[in-house]
């Protein structure tokens, strides 16, 4: 019984990690006033970069670095188009999503001669202490867990996952960065009242671009998680997670920790649906849930969710809005 409960909690956490990381990325971009529909593409690019990097270097650490780099690259394009050229932010995001979908597909065929998936790679080995608690089960393909920690295997494996620890730490750090530092203040000003920021002698463009690039870091990390969990890249593996992350970000009122909490809620709903017999809860209903909750949040029925005041508006010094 306790084993089932911990397995459930571990599953909720595993499902929520990519949502929460991407939602944090979204918060950075949108707090600065730049809508980032392109998160979906950033996640996909991050997943591809991680797989390609790990396969090329043999090191999952370098793979994650490649993945984050790929995320930053797509975010940089978004920043150039929206902050640099002041083009429509939604359109840029949509275009980038398509670009990454087509681009990764092309690279997949070019590098690995497949239109569906990359070769498999091992990824991170769980930290040694996990195996000590659970017996051999922590080793993939090993015998059933026998040690005293066996019922907690799923959770222990998560705690032993470097990217889980980095991600959780990163989200806390993001909260501090946004609400406890001068840069965070500038970023929020860029989204709420860019003119004041400009008046204080700080470049709105630079601050906004930094916010978008940070969304690339977190979105890329979300993709890295997907690729590492799967031990490969598969075509279109982001699977709409960027949009769910945006929904969670709105429900969390553009705050990383609250957004991550919303992700846990969405993750719990998803895990619950997996564990109740099919037919009890219609699949369609649970797939709607994140969006329904988001609409309720926007309508003001679940607390008040107000977007940054200048979200979606390019800042023009001449007009001085």
């Amino acid at each position: 019984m306790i084993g089932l409960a911990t397995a459930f909690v571990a599953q909720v956490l595993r499902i929520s990690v990519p949502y929460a990381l991407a939602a944090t990325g979204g918060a950075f971009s949108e707090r600065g006033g730049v809508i980032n529909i392109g998160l979906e593409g950033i996640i996909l690019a991050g997943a591809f970069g991680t797989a390609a990097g790990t396969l090329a270097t043999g090191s999952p650490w370098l793979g994650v670095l490649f993945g984050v780099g790929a995320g930053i690259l797509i975010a940089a394009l978004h920043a150039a188009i929206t902050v640099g050229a002041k083009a429509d932010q939604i359109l840029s995001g949509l275009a980038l999503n398509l670009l990454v979908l087509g681009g990764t597909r092309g690279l997949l065929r070019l590098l690995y001669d497949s239109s569906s998936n990359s070769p498999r790679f091992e990824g991170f080995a769980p930290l040694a202490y996990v195996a000590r608690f659970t017996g051999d089960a922590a080793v993939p393909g090993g015998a059933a867990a026998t040690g005293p920690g066996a019922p907690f295997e799923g959770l222990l494996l998560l705690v032993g996952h470097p990217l889980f620890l980095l991600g959780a730490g990163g989200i806390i750090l993001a909260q501090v960065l946004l609400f406890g530092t001068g840069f965070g203040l500038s970023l929020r000003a860029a989204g709420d009242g860019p003119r004041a920021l400009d008046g204080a002698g700080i470049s709105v463009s630079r601050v906004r671009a930094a916010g978008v690039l940070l969304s690339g870091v977190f979105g890329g990390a979300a993709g890295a998680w997907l690729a590492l969990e799967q031990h490969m890249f598969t075509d279109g593996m982001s699977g709409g997670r960027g949009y769910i992350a945006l929904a969670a970000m709105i429900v969390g009122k553009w705050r990383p920790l609250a957004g991550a909490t919303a992700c846990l809620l969405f993750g719990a709903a998803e895990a619950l649906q997996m564990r109740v017999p099919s037919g009890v809860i219609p699949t369609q209903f649970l797939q709607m849930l994140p969006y329904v909750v988001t609409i309720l949040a926007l309508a003001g029925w679940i607390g008040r969710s107000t977007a940054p005041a200048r979200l979606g508006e390019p800042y023009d010094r001449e007009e001085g809005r």
Partner: protein
Amino acid sequence: MVRGGRVSGWATGWATGWRTGWVACAAVFLVIGVLTGGGCTKKEAAKGDTYPVGLVFDVGGIGDKSFNDAAYAGLLRARDQLGIRFEYFEPGEGTDREAALRLLASGSSKIILGVGFLFTDDIETVAREYPEKLFACVDYTWTEGKQVPANLVGLKFREEEGSFLVGAIAGLVSQSGTVGFVGGMDIPLIHKFEAGYHAGVLSVRPDAKVIISYAGVTGDAFKNPAKGKELALAQIDAGADVIFHASGSTGLGVFEAVRARNKLAIGVDSDQSAVAPDHCLTSMVKQVDVAVFDAISRARDGTFAGGILSEGLKEGGVDYVFNEGNARWITPPIRARVEALRKEIVEGRVTVSSGR
């Protein structure tokens, strides 16, 4: 260019200023360039008087190590053995299937094949527009009372029969008495796999528990391995030790889950043992290559007949994989039991329901 024009019109609707519109159009054109670069077309050089064949692949195209590659193998075999020449399209994401079919139909191709159930409506439309050409659709969706054009053959597989046999294998190999099924998109085509599998498990083990999960209700459900992995892990937590998937690349996640927890999975469409050699019990294979080859062969011979062509265990259209790799699980008594079931189905003494 038609497509570019349509998209830019839509784009300017979104954009606010002329400059924004221009940048946006440039971006959209760039993207379309990339997409059409991914979805490409190819022609095989003609050698003398050869029979021209056109084929449009499903999403994924050549290199998917499954459905499309099987169709391609049939095409190559037809080239080598029947002396045909062919032309093919690999459409990217989106709705250009109909355009690709029409392009081939208006060219020299005498028979045009569409690979995948998504072609059903488009190929009917195009077949009616080009009555002098022949058409074939793999995994054609036929509903009661629908009139199939005389120049179109819908190639169907009785997946429920192959699924019945792998279900029996799962029921016999399982130690826990609980087995799982992971479907991709929740649609009638996948329900056939589910229904056959479920019936197969119960036929050899009436007290067995079958856990059934679907990855989603959109096309994305066929390419969400992370979801597939979590679904399979949840089934394993509930006691399942053998899991059959019919879910495209979502199933790669199912293999990942059984690998991590030392259980067994059953592959689909083609032999998937290479994905996880020590954890692939068997695969429910569909002979898409044979169906494609036969359709071309009949068209060339002049024996082509429109309508529905359904292939099951009897015709060799579906089967399960048995070789030295999985003989460690499928022991002689299990093999004998399953072959007896096959005989009953082939002889018509047992019919497998295709719906739940």
